[in-house]
């Protein structure tokens, strides 16, 4: 049995999904953070029942094709025909939430409503007549609290029973209100007209008819109506407009909301202004304040970066570094005493361990940064950021909503690129994706930390900061260029819900960090391990597979020497830096581990001058995103060629900028 979990954004859908399946995934409070369909098996007691699968659809407000996510959800339900729809509704915001429910009910698929956040409603003195609501809506309604895991067992038994017995929604006519007879008649006459087409396409005729009345072009194309039929429909709609005094699109929405208002007035004893709402409004008086809003945002970001890169993350990283160095030394001494072959010792210590170690020591910094970004998202602050920053982003042709994926980009480009699916226009989405790699991801941090601490002792923090700022400045330049030449026109409308602030779930946050740490460690032991060993191999042997006395004569040196001249104008045309840059394409962290492996014993001072070290940092902060990010970009653009083109253009851009900066620096320093 396949069950689609559908609901508005910010209604606790992902929390319910976790409660039902026990699967661990990210719960976000920014509208639309669920960017991919996630599937989980229903949890029964301690085991999971693999016969019952739940698909977590993106959070949507309607089944009209306004955003990509609405299209994804709608297509999924229409094409995949799940055995049932589990519709989650936020009881504390019931009117707007039920709007989607009415559309889902029209699909003629068995359906159950999970009325979430009932604890909040009760806490604030409200109540809901569940039985009457079930009757009026024609679908079973079960009150729950996903966050407290209340009512989940009952919900399970109700939906399993409903879906097994294939009980369809009992009410589909939502046009019982007083003066809306015109809409009712129009829907019914169109239902008859398109009956055969809907049957051909195997979709509910009721759903098809209301979409046609709404003027939904996707549906009209999908049904393959004849010119004659379209003309008759147009005539019906004109009649409708003159009868009810508004056009058909507004008339349908009006009809649905009237129906909902009627249901709500009969079943809901309204809460007074809820505590959560009051608190949120008060917090927003400060966080979105006319004068303090933006400085506070900058201060919060500053604090996040300070804590991640310095106070907590940075210091933990130093501790990690020392521990790892000591471990490698101990292993080396042990192996020497064991009288192991020196080449083998070199493979283990100089190849594998130091490669992995140099990357692993940055784990604390990365986790701390991720922790803060996810707290900002789950608490609902990211939505405020979008609201506060919208006007500024509009100047570069984007909307406030693009700001969130870009902030996530400071963590990792891959989820950032995927988060662009919440944007409602293809233009905004593509532009945002192109800008994301300019936000230095945490994987680049080890590079900045490593090189800056050696080449710029004392001012390494400042150097790192300058790279972040440079990335942002160049992103703005890029955005203006794109706006002028490639993606002309205005950005899409900005219409976004402000959810109430919520305290992020402790469990969810911890699980997210655990996933992230696991991800990073797995990467360290697979990609980085392999790259380190392979590079060690090529640098230890020459083409006749003799151990070389000087890496200069190794296979690696010979290959890299061939490419290195490209970087001569930037001041770092050595084969060692070239090799590091090439491995950086696999994973940015590798740049550090490879440099470390290649310069074992002599340090990197010999490779750079002050100016060329900075040019190298600029180049690494801007050149092609790693292979995982390029793959994500390719997916979102739906074109392999474009994905590669972006990677190449990005590298050319990086080369040019690094060149200019290097030449300028040369005028002042060496």
């Amino acid at each position: 049995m396949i069950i689609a979990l559908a609901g508005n954004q910010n209604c606790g859908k992902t929390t319910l999904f976790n409660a039902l399946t026990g699967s661990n995934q990210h719960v976000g409070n920014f509208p639309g953070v669920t960017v991919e369909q996630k599937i989980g098996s229903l949890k029964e007691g301690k085991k999971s029942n693999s016969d019952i699968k739940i698909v977590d659809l993106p959070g949507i407000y309607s089944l009209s094709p306004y955003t990509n996510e609405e299209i994804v959800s709608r297509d999924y339900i229409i094409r995949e025909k799940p055995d049932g729809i589990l519709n989650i509704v936020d009881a504390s915001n019931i009117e707007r939430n039920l709007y989607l429910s009415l559309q889902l009910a029209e699909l003629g698929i068995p359906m159950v409503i999970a009325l979430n956040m009932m604890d909040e409603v009760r806490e604030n003195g409200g109540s809901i007549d569940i039985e009457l609501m079930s009757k009026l809506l024609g679908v079973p309604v079960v009150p729950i609290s996903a966050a407290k895991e209340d009512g989940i067992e009952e919900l399970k038994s109700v939906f399993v029973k409903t879906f097994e017995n294939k009980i369809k929604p009992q009410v589909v006519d939502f046009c019982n209100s007083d003066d809306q007879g015109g809409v009712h008649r129009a829907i019914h006459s169109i239902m008859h007209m398109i009956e055969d087409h809907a049957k051909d396409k195997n979709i509910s005729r009721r759903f098809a008819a209301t979409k046609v009345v709404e003027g939904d072009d996707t549906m009209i194309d999908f049904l393959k109506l004849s010119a004659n039929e379209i003309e008759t429909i147009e005539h019906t709609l004109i009649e409708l407009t003159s009868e009810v005094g508004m056009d058909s699109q507004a008339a349908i929405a009006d009809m649905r909301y009237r129906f909902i208002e009627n249901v709500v007035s009969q079943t809901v004893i309204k809460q007074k202004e809820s505590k959560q709402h009051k608190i949120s409004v008060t917090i927003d008086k400060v966080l979105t304040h006319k004068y303090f809003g933006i400085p506070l945002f900058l201060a919060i970001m500053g604090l996040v970066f300070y804590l991640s890169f310095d106070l907590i993350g940075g210091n933990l990283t130093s501790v990690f570094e020392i521990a790892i160095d000591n471990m490698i030394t101990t292993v080396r001494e042990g192996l020497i005493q064991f009288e192991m072959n020196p080449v083998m010792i070199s493979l283990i210590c100089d190849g594998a361990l130091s490669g992995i170690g140099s990357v692993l020591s940055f784990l604390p910094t990365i986790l701390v940064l991720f922790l803060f970004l996810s707290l900002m998202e789950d608490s609902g602050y990211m939505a405020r950021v979008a609201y506060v920053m919208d006007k500024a982003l509009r100047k570069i042709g984007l909307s406030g909503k693009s700001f969130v994926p870009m902030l996530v980009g400071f963590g990792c480009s891959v989820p950032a690129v995927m988060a662009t699916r919440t944007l409602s226009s293809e233009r905004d989405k593509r532009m945002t994706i192109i800008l994301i790699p300019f936000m230095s991801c945490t994987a680049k941090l080890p590079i900045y930390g490593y090189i800056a601490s050696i080449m710029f002792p004392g001012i390494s923090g400042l150097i790192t900061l300058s790279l972040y700022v440079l990335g942002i400045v160049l992103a703005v330049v890029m955005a203006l260029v794109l706006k002028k030449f490639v993606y002309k026109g205005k950005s899409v409308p900005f219409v976004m819900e402000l959810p109430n602030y919520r305290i992020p779930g402790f469990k969810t946050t911890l699980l997210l960090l655990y996933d992230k740490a696991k991800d990073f460690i797995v990467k360290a032991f697979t990609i980085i391990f392999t790259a380190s060993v392979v590079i060690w191999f090529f640098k230890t042997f020459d083409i006749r597979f003799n151990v070389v006395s000087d890496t200069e004569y190794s296979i690696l040196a010979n290959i890299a020497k061939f490419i290195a001249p490209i970087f001569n104008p930037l001041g770092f045309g050595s084969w060692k830096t070239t090799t590091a840059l090439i491995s950086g394409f696999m994973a940015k962290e590798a740049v550090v581990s490879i440099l470390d492996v290649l310069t074992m014993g002599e340090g990197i001072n010999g490779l750079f001058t002050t100016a060329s070290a900075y040019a190298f940092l600029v180049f690494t902060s801007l050149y092609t995103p790693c292979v995982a990010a390029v793959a994500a970009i390719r997916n979102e653009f739906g074109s392999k060629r474009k994905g590669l083109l972006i990677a190449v253009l990005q590298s050319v851009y990086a080369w040019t900028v690094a060149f200019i900066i290097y030449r300028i620096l040369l005028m002042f320093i060496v």
Partner: protein
Amino acid sequence: MTKLSELKVGESGVIVSVNGDKSLRGHLLDMGLTPNTCVRVSAMAPMGDPIEINLRGYRLTIRLDDASNIEVMKEKIVCNGNCRECLKKVK
């Protein structure tokens, strides 16, 4: 007739019509900005745009540009999220 974008912070109105291009219009209607709904402008972003409005018991942010597609009748009422009650008072 007033545009929603012309209401000042703290002022309320009842929606008369929603215009603009089809997809934006559809989205606004879906979000509950249907004719005869009362809305209150409750705040303004630091840079003066977008604005925050309250309707149907929730908070929505919208740009002035997009809000200018919505025509309202300015009313001396305070939106409490219950449009029926509100409309009775107006009529």
